[in-house]
């Protein structure tokens, strides 16, 4: 039995080998399970999300990567165009069936502005610039409005102000008109409307507008504005 210890050593070696073999099989099994779980619980790709009806939520912008917001804006606009086309179709159908047009809803107005934005390359660039400036806030609002499909006077006024601040006077006028349709007594809308007209070179029209308002309502601020316009004209 001189080989007893040699046999013992071989036995230990064999046991070690078996342990390595079984543990590697076990590890492989665990990895396979992990991979399977990953593929099962994998989130849907971005592409499929865009094909769904849901309008995308504004994604948070990363300040360290300046190129990212630009991409996001483009995606939004693409989605908005899809929604807009649908809305316009609905609007046309409604107009054909009903002789008297209903009070315009905000969603349609937004769609129109968006269509203009996308069709006109200059305005598209402008919009992009604007989104950079305001950190995509208007888009956030617009998309949320699209989701809700309802608008309050305050929302319309805020949007009109934002457009005015961003020197987009045409859109600001549209929002002013809409706000005035909701509430035409508020002097802030009339003031903003008049200022927009002035900026777009329609001072005459602005004076007329202020005069019309002052016929029915009394507003010191608008009176001063009218005076300024008239003085500048002369």
């Amino acid at each position: 039995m001189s080989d007893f210890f040699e046999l013992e050593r071989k036995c230990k070696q064999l046991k070690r080998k078996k342990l390595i073999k079984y543990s590697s099989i076990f590890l492989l099994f665990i990895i396979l399970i992990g991979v399977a779980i990953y593929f099962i619980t994998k989130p849907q790709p971005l592409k499929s999300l865009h094909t769904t009806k849901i309008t995308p939520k504004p994604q948070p912008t990363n300040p360290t990567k300046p190129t990212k917001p630009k991409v996001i804006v483009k995606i939004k606009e693409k989605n908005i165009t899809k929604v807009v086309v649908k809305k316009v179709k609905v609007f046309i159908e409604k107009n054909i069936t009903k002789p008297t047009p209903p009070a315009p809803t905000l969603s349609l107005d937004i769609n129109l502005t968006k269509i203009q934005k996308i069709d006109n390359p200059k305005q598209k660039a402008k919009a992009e610039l604007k989104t950079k400036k305001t950190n995509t806030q208007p888009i956030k609002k617009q998309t949320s409005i699209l989701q809700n499909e309802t608008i309050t006077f305050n929302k319309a006024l805020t949007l009109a102000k934002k457009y005015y601040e961003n020197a987009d006077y045409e859109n600001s006028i549209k929002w002013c008109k809409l706000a005035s349709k909701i509430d035409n007594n508020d002097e802030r809308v009339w003031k903003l409307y008049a200022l927009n007209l002035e900026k777009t070179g329609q001072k005459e029209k602005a004076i007329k507008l202020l005069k019309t308002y002052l016929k029915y309502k009394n507003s010191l601020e608008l009176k001063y504005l009218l005076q300024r316009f008239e003085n500048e004209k002369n």
Partner: protein
Amino acid sequence: MYENLIKEFEDSLNDEVFETISFNFAKKELEESKNNLRFLIGIPGTGKSFLLTHFYPDTPILSSTLTKEDIDKNLNQELIIIDEAQMLDNSLIEYIRTLADTKKYTFILSMHLTEAKKILQKEHFKSRTIDIIELKPITKQEMIQYINVKLLKNNANHLFSKKEFNKIYKYTKGNFRYIKKFVKTLFELLDFAVSNNIQKHSKINSCLITMTAIKLGLENE
């Protein structure tokens, strides 16, 4: 300490008969067969030689190294037994077949399973009715019974657990010769461990069984 057990498991043809199902079945078939040419086949170590020795104690068993002359010398008796017949050359097998055809002599050829199949495939055997008696390996229960009987004889029962029996059967695959050899070697190792005061191996354990398997070449290192 375990010398008696080591002796008990020594491989010998003079061993006591341990009757397994397959052994009894083969014995019965050999008894009842009326064919002049009988083949006792089975894998090595299943107890073919043992069966022939115990069933025909008065008949000489010829080895595979025999010649035509050796056969002729034994023609004075009706029954001729040849062990390890797979080693015989074709001419000798053909001679045995012609002698068996005379119906004067009865031949029992003991051979390994795989070789027997090849021989039986030959044309002159295909056309004849031959009694083929197969001795199968013993079952696990039979192995446990066999070891326990031997241990009981030496007042050494309960040395093995069920797990250890399973391991032994896994290595020996029911081969009777291997079982005896395995248990004998295992007791030799145990005896060494006890006499050298190796506490770790003072009882039969899985490591000792693996060591035995390595020693007998039944486990790949």
